[in-house]
């Protein structure tokens, strides 16, 4: 199977100037497929071109103060600090917190390439690009796993 056969369409995107708070809200109300919960990541488009990707981890990273990230001071934080810090960075622009070096695949990429990337870079999702480097879809780790399930079992769960 190839990337384009299991990718899902990208319905919602962010822009570099979206604030962190808006991004969190957009991710909260967005739906993927038949899902009922919000999404855990979104791509950032600048004039239609892929500029970055934001995941829950990027948002956490933006909230954690740099001095904690640099050191082992976690034990000395206090109750309510995370919430406090979240409010402090609410107005940050997405371009400041997004992952800029996005790992992508082409439409015709074999699933093995996608699986390899997912494991190597601890990814949850990979944007799929067409020949003009425009995003045409997204591959999720769960859909890839689904392909494995189908390879090992038929629809009735036998084999």
């Amino acid at each position, binding site marked *: 199977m190839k990337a384009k056969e299991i990718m899902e369409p990208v319905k919602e995107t962010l822009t570099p100037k979206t604030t962190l708070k808006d991004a969190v809200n957009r991710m909260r109300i967005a739906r993927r497929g038949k899902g009922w919960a919000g999404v855990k990541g979104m791509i950032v488009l600048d004039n239609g071109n892929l500029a970055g990707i934001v995941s829950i981890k990027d948002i956490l990273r933006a909230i954690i*103060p*740099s*001095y*904690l990230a*640099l*050191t*082992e*001071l976690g*034990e*000395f*934080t*206090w109750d309510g*600090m995370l919430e406090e*810090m979240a409010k402090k960075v609410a107005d940050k622009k997405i371009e400041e917190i997004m992952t800029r070096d996005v790992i992508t695949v082409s439409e015709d990429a074999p699933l093995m390439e996608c699986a390899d990337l997912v494991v190597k870079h601890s990814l949850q999702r990979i944007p799929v690009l067409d020949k003009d480097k425009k995003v045409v879809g997204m591959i999720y780790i769960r859909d890839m796993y689904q392909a494995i399930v189908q390879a090992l079992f038929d629809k009735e769960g036998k084999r």
Partner: protein
Amino acid sequence: MTPEAATASQPFVMGASFWTATIIFLLAYALIISEKVHKTVVAIFAAALMIVLKILEQKEAFHSEVLGIDWNVIFLLLSMMIIINLMKPTGFFEYIAIKSAKLGKGEPMRIMTIFAIVTAILSAFLDNVTTVLLLAPVTLLIADALEVDPIPFLIAEALASNIGGTATLIGDPPNIMIASKAHFDFMDFIYNLTPAIIVVMAAFLFILKIMFGKKLHVRPELKQRILEMDERDAIKDPIMLKKSLFVLSIVIIGFVLHGTFNYEPATVALFGAGLLLLLSGTHEPHHVLAEIEWPTIFFFMGLFIIIGGVVKVGLIKWMSIEVLAITHGNMFATSMLMMWFSAVASAFVDNIPYVATMNPLIIDMAHQIWPHLQGLKLLHNPELMPVWWSLSLGACLGGNGTAIGASANVIVIGLAERAGKKISFIRFMAYGMPVMMLTVLISTIYIWLRYYILKI
């Protein structure tokens, strides 16, 4: 005849090699100051040019005590970096910082004072950048906990580290370089500079209170956050911590005694680094060694070669003749000129290349004033001593003047910016410049009183 005497007595001609070396020197320093190219890159390339263009023989650059790399400085720096790199993961420094904050009982002004004192003391034994790198993260955490502006704390720490570093031979690179060139031992610095720094530090704490005392207020319930912290949680590796403290004590005792037993400071530090590496039981020293500040080390090596070049062609001698023309050989005037010129120069340019240039200049000058003296009789001439101490005080304390005056300042500003708090050039100078002026003024009075009035 000592090697120093040999160089200084050599006649010099302003020929092709004189101008070649001078141009390399000036261009290199201009590039370093402009920050257009990384200073280490400049130093390495300019040093290579000095050898390629036959200003210096490679043998002189690598092996001559007078013209080449000062391995005493290099190995002292390397060894101290290895010791600190091994010590860092134990959590010792975080422990001290949290403990200090608790001693301050959550009162911001008390915490700032205690942090300034701790920074100064640590800086006297570690390099300044390391000290602020270790303390600044905890400072930012404490400021967040108390919901106060961290900038005054960070500026106070940068200033305190530059002051504290002046107190000992190993506290600040200028002192390491001066000690190596002028053959001073650890106790010479303790005896001559530490008293000055204690007075300077007291005055600095007083100014801190005036500058920031009224601005810092904290809601009582926030102080609780500090008091609830348990500094013991910071210790990650108690066994390695004990080994580190054991080795560190040996090293400090070694520094105190190295003059008596005729060891160079670098030998003491190298022994400490080797011993701690051995005790750490590491099978993979790669990581510890990779974390050495190699750019700094190579900056020093390059600078030593560049300076060797201009010493050899006589530029430094020419400069020393010019200085003598201004001071007419009056050593009090020379000390004062050295102190204030060094302070102003170090406020704007890196004090390491500055001191690297001044060391041979002072020696050349001394040769001209006392042509019959050699070796330690020349270097430790009672009339010359205050000039060395003025160079150290001026060059180290001058670093406080501006945001770019010392590496500790640059590091603190960088860390603050990463934490989303910008410290502008002007804001740093608003605090740094008065502190520099006052501390250099106190040092001036100290030098005058101690060496020219009391003569002790």
